[in-house]
């Protein structure tokens, strides 16, 4: 199908993009990689009157190391560029592991990090990864800029803290603490389909090999990324054994209230989330053990 008629703007500067957003308000949609918006427009589910194409804003794309050893990633950076960047693999292995799960290479060639985060699909990988990594997001509009931690950015189903007239500009990923390990797991009916459930996990051990920090963030099981702090509490201060990891996975199973659809019932999703959590934590602790050795 073809989209409903719309007016197209491709501003060459951020200031012009902000002005267009202010002028058109709710009638306007920013266009990043277009891998969710354009299909929705072609189905005519989305019928924005005005499209503001961000693809000419070169300043919004790129990967830069920070002084503190982290990364600053422009919102318009393509997912494929992240996947191929050795600095991403080194500084944010969780992100590097997650990227190949996102749809297909053709989609990642166009799809952007910021576009996926601003869209906030409940089954998408990147919001969970940003929570897992403790990323910060820079938002801006004609009235100024602000930084938000990832957990304050995602408000629910397709909804974020972005105000009308604001754009997501940049994502800052902190340097991983020494001795940390990461793992990403996802299950979909076919590779590239929307995840039935998935998990982003991080772990860090102290000098005695006890659990110092654990992060478990699920996706595809609610309205957005779902952190499960209870899973970390089940492991805190203890040596991670198969038994204790299974206990943490059980916390995930019992704390989730996932939706059901034709592909998976809520009970199946809970069980799947627990299995994926167990696998991810096992790998994350393994990696943390090697990193601290």
């Amino acid at each position, binding site marked *: 199908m073809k989209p409903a008629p719309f007016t197209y703007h491709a501003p060459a500067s951020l200031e012009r993009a902000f002005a267009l957003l202010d002028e058109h308000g709710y009638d306007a949609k920013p266009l990043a990689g277009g891998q*969710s*918006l354009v299909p*929705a427009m072609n*189905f005519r*589910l*989305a*019928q*924005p009157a005005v499209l503001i194409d961000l693809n000419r804003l070169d300043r919004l794309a790129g990967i830069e190391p920070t002084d503190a050893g982290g990364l600053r990633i422009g919102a318009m950076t393509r997912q494929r560029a992240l996947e191929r960047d050795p600095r991403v693999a080194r500084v944010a292995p969780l992100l590097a592991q997650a990227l190949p799960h996102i749809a297909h290479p053709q989609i990642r060639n166009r799809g952007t990090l910021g576009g996926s985060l601003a*869209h*906030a*699909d*409940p*089954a998408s990988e990147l919001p969970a990864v940003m929570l897992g990594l403790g990323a910060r997001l820079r938002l801006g509009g004609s009235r100024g800029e602000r930084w938000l931690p990832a957990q304050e950015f995602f408000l*629910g*189903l*397709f*909804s974020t803290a972005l105000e009308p007239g604001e754009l997501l500009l940049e994502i800052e990923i902190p340097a991983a603490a020494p001795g940390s390990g990461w793992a990403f797991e996802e299950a979909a009916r076919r590779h590239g389909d*929307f995840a039935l459930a998935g998990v982003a996990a991080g772990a860090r051990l102290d000098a005695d090999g006890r659990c110092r920090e654990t992060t478990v963030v699920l996706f595809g099981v*609610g*309205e957005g990324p779902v952190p499960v702090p209870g899973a970390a509490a089940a492991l805190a201060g203890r040596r991670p054994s198969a038994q204790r990891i299974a206990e943490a996975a059980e916390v995930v199973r019992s704390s989730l209230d996932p*939706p*059901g*659809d*034709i*592909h998976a019932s809520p009970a199946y999703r809970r069980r799947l989330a627990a299995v994926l959590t167990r696998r991810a934590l096992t790998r994350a602790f393994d990696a943390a053990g090697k990193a601290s050795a």
Partner: protein
Amino acid sequence: MIVKGEHAFSGRPELVWALLLDPEVIAKAMPGTRELALTAPNRYEGRMVVTIGPVTAAEFALVIMLEELAPPRRFVMRVDGNGRFGFTRGTARVELAANDGGTMMRYEADLQVGGKIAAVGQRLLDVVSRTLLRAGLAALGKELEHRLGDGDRP
């Protein structure tokens, strides 16, 4: 799709009953309702515009019928929505019981959603219906608080 649950209100059942049958309140409780009027006894008609994520302004013509009314304990609500993007039909059973000076509402709805919105958005129907339901219950609770605040306390 079955949607069921329970919700505690702070007012007594008579008050909650009056709330649930007031077209102005129903319009507030169903997110996106643009107009809703009582067109015949126990029959409401109106228009609803749902905006969720990339779906902008899916407009539905809405008919709500109330049946098997047993004030202030239970009623059955039939909902029929039709729009360019698809349709929704459903029957909800609602029961009210006095509970600790307040009211416990139990509801169970069987909803069918069809057309384009169901074909494209199948994986999201459950989570969307929960989101709308929660917003609706929050709006009902707020309205009730408002009325209680006006000196209508039990």
